């Protein structure tokens, strides 16, 4: 559960990706050299979209899991595991990073 205390944040330099909400989904497009690649769209469902919203500001992973546990009525244990897994995928794609841990 080490990841649960980490603080995650979007890597949002305004140039690396474009996000857009369309028909309830959040779409993320990687951008390279001012060119967005439409063959590499990341599509987030409602849960992923909620996590992405929560990451508008740096947020502890545990707090994200708590929020999802309440809003989507899943157990805290399940939520923390799913959130950590999802965030790791986002980090592998270069969309987020971790900037520290909560005390």
């Amino acid at each position, binding site marked *: 559960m080490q990841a649960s205390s980490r603080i995650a944040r979007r890597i949002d330099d305004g140039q690396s990706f474009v996000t857009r909400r369309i028909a309830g989904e959040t779409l993320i497009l990687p951008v390279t050299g001012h*060119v967005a690649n*439409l063959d590499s769209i990341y599509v987030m469902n409602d849960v992923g979209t909620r996590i992405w919203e929560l990451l508008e500001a740096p947020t502890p992973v545990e707090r994200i899991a708590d929020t999802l546990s309440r809003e989507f009525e899943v157990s805290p244990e399940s939520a923390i595991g799913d959130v950590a897994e999802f965030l790791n995928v986002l980090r592998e794609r270069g969309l987020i990073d971790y900037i520290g841990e909560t005390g």
Partner: protein
Amino acid sequence: MTRFAALAEHVVGTGMSIRFRASGDSMYPAILHGDVITVAPVAAHEIVRGDILLFRDGDRVRAHRLVRVVAYNTETRFRLRGDTNARCDAPVAASQIVGRVEAVERDGRAIALHATPSNGLGTSATIRRYLMLCRRLLA
């Protein structure tokens, strides 16, 4: 509008270019099915005959070549046509134009993209359709 069309319009509207894999054969041989094309924003006054323009057509987008510009009441309309198509698309308003195709990549290599006049000096639509048929038979 499809997700793709909405996204394409939004991104190019922000001033960025988009890169994606083309589908269909209407622009053969300039663009083949599976080629990767780059579309950049373009101002209406920069558009010239022969440009390949990405435009909104109902709930989808198409990339066809500009054949001519016509006055339609008090507005300008663009007449576009797929290189293998016999007929032009319905007149397109400037507001429907998403951007201009600036680059084509095939098998990882850049393909030269030249504006081709569609005034009879280029390959006729009939010949192009014949070439398409030959290509399909050979495929």
